């Protein structure tokens, strides 16, 4: 049965994309456990809606879009469901105490976490995930010009945060 075969193939492809989905999710929510929950929700939704995926579209972009939409649903419902689904403490703790130990890595993570959502997503998709502008714009469902300007602003803010405190003004 060809439909079964293609379903199998897509599932294999989704499995192969899990590491990248996990990475993207970690830039959406703070704790790795919550990030994996988001990935699981997205993957379950993707399988439910496989008929909506067009094989000419990139599977990674499609999954990123589902993940992003699942996260938006989560954020929207967060107010009232916070006590059940996402305790605020878990979301707001960036781990500043341990920052000094792994300055490079954590400061980049912390800097990215401080960006507004729009810019953080644009930076995440283009710079971290390596998506083309066109594909990133598609994931975020915005025109390419909007994506470009969010990316430019996000980059500018990141560069300012990551710039060493001394030595750049000489």
């Amino acid at each position, binding site marked *: 049965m060809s439909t079964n075969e293609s379903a199998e193939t897509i*599932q294999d492809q*989704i*499995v192969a994309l*899990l*590491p*990248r989905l*996990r*990475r993207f999710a*970690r*830039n959406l929510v703070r*704790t790795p*456990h919550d990030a*994996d*929950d988001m*990935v*699981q*929700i997205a*993957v*379950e*939704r993707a*399988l439910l809606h496989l008929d909506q995926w067009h094989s000419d579209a990139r599977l990674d972009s499609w999954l990123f879009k589902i993940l992003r939409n699942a996260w938006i*649903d989560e954020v929207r*419902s967060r107010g*009232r*469901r916070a*006590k*059940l*689904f*996402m*305790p605020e*403490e*878990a979301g707001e703790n960036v781990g500043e105490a341990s920052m000094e130990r792994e300055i*490079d*890595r954590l400061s*980049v*993570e912390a800097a*990215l976490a401080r960006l507004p959502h729009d810019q953080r997503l644009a*930076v995440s998709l*283009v*710079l*971290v995930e*390596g998506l*083309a*502008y066109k594909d990133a714009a598609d994931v975020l469902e915005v025109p390419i010009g909007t994506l*470009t*300007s969010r*990316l*430019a602003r996000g*980059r*500018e803010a*990141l*560069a300012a945060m*990551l710039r060493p405190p001394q030595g750049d003004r000489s």
Partner: protein
Amino acid sequence: MSVSDETLMAYADGEVDAATRAIIETAMRDDPEIRRRIEEHRALRETMQGAFSAVLEEPVPQRLIDAARGQTAARAGNVVDLAHARRAAAGQVPGRWRRWQPTAMAASLLVGLALGYVGWHSAKPLVTTSSSGELVAGAGLAEALSHQLSEDRSPGLAAITGLSFRAKTGNYCRTFSLTGSHASSGLACHESDGWKIKVLAQSPPATSNSSNFRPAASADPPAIRVAVEQSIDGEPLDRAGEIAARQSGWSAASRR
């Protein structure tokens, strides 16, 4: 010559057309400032790629691999496939047992066995089956679902109610967590003949990090969240909404 920073950024990302690329490369030769800005864009791109690559090397949790292969529901000990549990309850009840014991007792025991929840209090079962073989809330759970508000987290409760909402079907539904050694969570909806259990899943073990912060009921398995998201109509009920729904007996007919 002046080139906008967005254009330089797009060049550094390989996103400009051939004509623009030629212009920028000419400008780069003459202008060290343009070279520096492009270099800054490239360096930031490399920094961002490098900073988040560690997760790619981590082993992917099995539950995600199972989810990607569509095996979430079939996995023993994680999410219980209700249809399967019902078949088990309906089909595997030995005839002798049916004669010897009240049907509901036998069925609830079997469901308990099927779900791995042996040891639930059989005098006041939390989960049982109806005469038509559906999983329903037993007396203990039904009492909690009908009367407890979501803020109620007094110690010693057999079940903690989480979120209450009206489903697209018009029925009221509530999530719940069962405490004790077989901690699990579920979603139940109030139908004309009582609380029907729509999803039942074992709660993920609390990690050392989160157990300090989260109330017991917060560690809901993704299956419950997905079920809530798929069935919820609008927003969850607030406290006043829960009280009103409770007064109406969680009756689907009385729209507020």
